[in-house]
């Protein structure tokens, strides 16, 4: 599956986004600012996660007119979100020509049992995951990129850290198991044996692994990259901060120099106020976005 030309093109675009920052935007003006700050791609959505959290209601795919205007305005890749399981939203986004579709838990799920069968599409998909089993199920369905979910709109990095650490630890564990143990692990993880064996042999996911959900500062971006993320998605963290332009630039710099404390210090200076964060442990279960997706 990973060797088919179609799949190589899908993961190929994700390869080009590595070391970069994908920024959530809700209109063409924000998209332009994100591009000027050095975003490697933008994610078009109706409302940023912290507003979805505040305002409630049903969060759907963004307005076509706005996505189209964003595509016309910037020269970098444009991604858009579809609801979990909503394969017609996905077909519409594909027909529109977006460069990546995020089947996202940030929007209100359309199907509480099934994700989209992403194999029949020409456009690549990214999906969220909290652990290895979830990541491998999404890859089996055809996702060409995984992002750890974190807790979107919280401005709190703790969940993103938990998820990337969990996935990395579970992958390491597979590399020391024998063949018969992998069959058992496949059952435990709820993931196809073929993918479990691939991870055991290679010690990594067969698709690029990015991080999302709670990144609010340059230090947050560098933290998840040091833990193994290959690029970062930033949602509310930029446009809900005091000076979005400065913060966007600083997070771009941090994604490149994530191992260089002197550069991270430069990136962290004079940023203005970060977005207000939420204590995720005090959120009721029903308000968590990360538990959406199965």
């Amino acid at each position, binding site marked *: 599956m990973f060797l088919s*030309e179609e799949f*190589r*093109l899908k993961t*190929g*675009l994700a*390869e*080009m*986004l*590595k*070391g*970069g920052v994908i920024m959530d935007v809700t209109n063409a003006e924000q998209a332009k600012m994100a*591009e*000027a*700050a*050095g*975003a*490697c*791609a933008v994610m078009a959505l109706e409302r940023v996660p912290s507003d979805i959290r505040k305002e409630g209601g049903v969060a759907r795919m963004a307005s076509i007119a706005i996505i189209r205007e964003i*595509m016309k305005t910037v*020269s*970098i*890749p444009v991604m858009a979100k579809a609801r979990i399981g909503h394969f017609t939203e996905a077909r519409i986004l*594909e027909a529109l*020509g*977006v*460069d*990546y579709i995020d089947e996202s838990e940030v929007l209100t799920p359309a199907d509480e049992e099934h994700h989209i069968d992403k194999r029949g599409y*020409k*456009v*690549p998909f990214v999906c969220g995951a909290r652990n290895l089993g979830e990541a491998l199920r999404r890859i089996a369905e055809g996702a060409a990129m995984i992002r750890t979910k974190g807790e979107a709109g919280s401005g709190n990095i703790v969940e993103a850290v938990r998820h990337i650490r969990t996935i990395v630890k579970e992958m390491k564990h597979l590399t020391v198991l024998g063949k018969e143990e992998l069959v058992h692990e496949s059952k435990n993880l709820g993931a196809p044996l073929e993918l479990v064996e691939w991870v055991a042999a290679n010690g990594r996911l067969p698709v690029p692994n990015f991080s999302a959900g709670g990144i609010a500062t340059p230090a947050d971006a560098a933290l998840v990259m040091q833990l193994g993320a290959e690029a970062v998605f930033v949602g509310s963290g930029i446009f809900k901060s005091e000076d979005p332009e400065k913060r966007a*630039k600083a997070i*771009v*710099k941090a*994604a*490149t*120099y994530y191992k*260089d404390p002197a550069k991270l210090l430069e990136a962290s200076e004079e940023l203005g106020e970060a977005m207000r964060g939420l204590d995720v442990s005090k959120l009721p279960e029903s308000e968590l976005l990360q538990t959406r997706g199965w």
Partner: protein
Amino acid sequence: MAGKTVGILALQGDFAAHRKAVQRAGGLAVEVRVAAELAQCDGLIIPGGESTTMLKLLDQEALTESIRLFAEHKPVYGSCAGAILLAREVTHPPQPALGLLDITVERNAYGRQIDSRIARLPLNEAIDGGGEMEAVFIRAPIIRRVGGGVTVLASYGGDPVWVEAGRHMVTTFHPELSADSKVHARFLRKL
């Protein structure tokens, strides 16, 4: 080429894939993020990725001038976004570039991601005796004009996709995503 080191500009993009491709072709590779790291390099590769992101960082981190000086004596190779950064002129939209090769490059010229493709390029006799080579195009640019002194090494659909001018070289496709090492091997021979 023995004992020579290739720097891979690692500001953003698929620099890790280039590092592996250099190693497959028998070279040593190091990542370059700051100007001082160029000192240990005998050549430089600018990878695929987003050219606008790399431009911002090149500028902000004062790397543009360092790479220009480096290129006065040492070879530089760019793939896709790297090709855009090495061109004399960039269109769609216009943006600044290093101008190391006299070519005009149009960004995203095939369209969007759904227009990305894998093609087989016919090679002429002069390159490893001819035959074919796989070429992965991802939101690729097209070279719309080549100036004097620029040699076309391979074309696709009538457009040059692999060109060189003296010690510098560009491809609009991504050989770092293919198993074939011809492009990287040719670059290593320039060191």
